[in-house]
């Protein structure tokens, strides 16, 4: 389940990047728009993926103090 999600999202990001590369209008700002979109997708994916991966097999367990009855 875990790794598959990572790969599926990666594929989606990849497709989006290709679409961005294909459909950016020509002009002096083409390079800026293309690079910005692809880099944004890459950065956000990395951030999400790292966070997702580190929670797949946690080595420690969360501890908390829970209120079970109000006064």
């Amino acid at each position, binding site marked *: 389940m875990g790794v598959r999600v990572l790969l599926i999202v990666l594929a989606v990001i990849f497709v989006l990047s290709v679409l961005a590369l294909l459909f950016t209008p020509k002009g002096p700002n083409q*390079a800026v728009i293309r*690079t910005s979109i692809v880099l944004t997708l890459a950065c956000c994916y990395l951030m999400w993926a790292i966070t997702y991966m580190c929670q797949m097999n946690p080595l420690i367990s969360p501890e908390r103090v829970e*209120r079970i*009855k109000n006064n």
Partner: protein
Amino acid sequence: MASENKLPETTFLRSDVMSLAQFYIPSEISKQTIGALGELGLVQFRDLNKDVNAFQRTFVSDIRHYDEVSRQIRFLKSQIEREDIKIAKAEATGATSSPKELEDLEQKISETEKVVIELNENQRTLDKRYLELTEMRHVIKVTDEFFESSNVKDIQENNLTSESTTGLLKEENNAADLEAGKKSTVSFVAGVIPRTKINSFERLLWRMLRGNLYMKNAEIEEPIKDPETNELVEKNVFIVFVHGQVLLNKIKKLCESCGATVYPVSESAEQRNEESIEVLARIEDLDQVLNNTRDTRMNKLRDIAKNIDAWNTVVRKEKAIYHVMNLLKTDKNSMIAEGWVPTNKIPEIQQRIREAAESTGSNVTPIMNEVTYKSVPPTYNVTNKFTKCFQSIVDSYGVANYREINPALYTIITFPFLFAVMFGDLGHGVLMFLAALAMVLFEKKLANFKNEIFDMVFSGRYVILLMGLFSIFTGLVYNDCFSKPLSIFNTKNFDFVATSDPFEEEERGTFVNQVGNHISGNVYAFGLDPAWVSAENKLLFQNSYKMKLSVVLGVIHMLFGTIISFFNYTHRKSISSILLVFIPELLYMGSIFGYLAFCIVYKWCTDWSGANPPSLMNMLINMFLSPGSVNEEEKLYNGQGIIQLVLLLIAVVSIPILLLGKPIAQKIANKKTVEELPIENEVVAISERDYKKPEWSFADAFINQAVHTIEYCLSGISHTASYLRLWALSLAHGQLSEVLWDMLLNNVLKMDLNVVIKGIALFLIIGAWLGLTVAILLIMEGLSAFLHALRLHWVEFNSKFYKGEGYKFVPFSFRKILKKEEN
């Protein structure tokens, strides 16, 4: 059109392709042509008279002349500013003025200056006269009062009494003196003196006359305006009685040296009365004249204020044109100019100079040719208002070499992203985004607002906008909004079981300690699980997560930088650099630090339940200390020993290749190339005549490469460690916002109070909390995260591919010259 070569495109990736252009400009239209180029602002002229001293150039006298005109304008401006009259902005004027217009303008300016000086002179004389009359009036008034009071008669009868009223010095007067004085007539001097000097004046008088005087002074209530300095001065009227003409003259001299003014006042009351009436009448007359003069002067200045900016613009342009013309070479009837131009702008420039020539009605046109060059052209990165700030972030590290890949392109995203990793908080991100959004939306209105600190923030508004947006994203990933978690997805990933007996806490309820067992396969879909964010041991988890996050991001960032260097080498078609620099660098970085990042990810993706997870730190150390063997207990995967050995060998082998490869390859290449003989017929640009090919020596090349190798290999370690700042800062930011919440808001929320009082307390505390959040967390923390992101880009990222040894394209442009003067 098909025959024309395709013009190179402008992209943000690399600086524009430049050409060296040579202009032949007929002398009679040279000024108009240079003026037209200045309006266009696309040519950087090169100095063709390098051997001529700055004072001996052709147009020095013209520049001096315009310096004088500038001085006149500055004088007029200062006069206008002193009267607080607003100077009207001139609309941008197009074409350069004709010589006739210029001459008229200069005449007008110098005439205006004369008129203003004359008016000033007039006013000063009148002011002075007015001052004298006012002071006179005060003197008469005070003298009057003084003579009317009783003790004057005594003085006149007894001459000077033994008691001095100066009050400053109490000394017994010489009786003999008094006896002698009885017979002589007593005369007096009256005048006005600044209040600050009255004491020293008194003392001096006393000493000079050895006490043989009677002095009285009175303060003038309203301060008097000094016409020279325009300042208000507080003054006193004084009257001094002494014997004899000699002493009187002495006193008058002393008055002069002390800055006092003496006024002739008659002794008899009737005469004084007449004088007083006369003075009053004259003051009235003068008042009228003074008002008229003032009005005339103000009207004149107001008139000037309407035009002065336009005059200034014309004069500045003329001066700039002559400065450029000093760079040109004179050749019979024409002038030769050479300068760098962006290749794709050549048609535009050609059209513009043709138009300029036509507009003068001359039948000759300037000629523009492209010439070959060997020296390095300037770097011209075309920016817009969005990319400008990112470009300046990069340029303050170093201007890119000609046609080198421009890091600003990547900085647009990676800079705000790395900032946001350190600044991850949804709430703070939203606040920052809104502030920047306001600056972007009201861009036009705010552009005129002048304040140094605001200008700095304002020029970076698009950077701040993106920083805010990315902070919102990383805030969501960290699941952190003003230090509180959001539960967007309501999935249950942990099975909480009690680990202790329920215990009661005073007045608050019954609690129990719980520990959450991970439900295998369930992972919080986006960001950190709220179970982690509100856990007691959240720091333990976050530390490990954020540390590994920063290492992985750092390694990827650095590998990305190394890969970009590949495109710099392909652009220069330097295969040896790719083989001997790029590939060893990539292998070295990849086999050690890339491998570390891989291991981090691999460890995360493996289910360690039941097994003992190995420590990555020990693994990396052992990879160097005992290559080829891995402890059975600390094994990450099968075949680890062999793979690590191979990676280590790759890294070790790539170092000598990196060190020696390139210098040796260059030496071989240098032997092969035969010295090129200059082609006879080639048009050589004047500015290229003294070009010398940079000399290559093996020793230099080797030392350079050695420095680069040492830097790259050692800095691999230190740079990776440097990315840990991402972890440290984001942790600090999270902790600080949590402390702020707990100390302020939470304390009040927990309080058991009357609803009304609690409401008021809450209102106040929210204000304090918000103020501190903005001041400490947004501004201070934001600034520190900004600086760290800056460093990561300048040092860690740019050093992988960026030379930054170029120089900027500075075209001759009136717009820039005029803008520079404004600031």
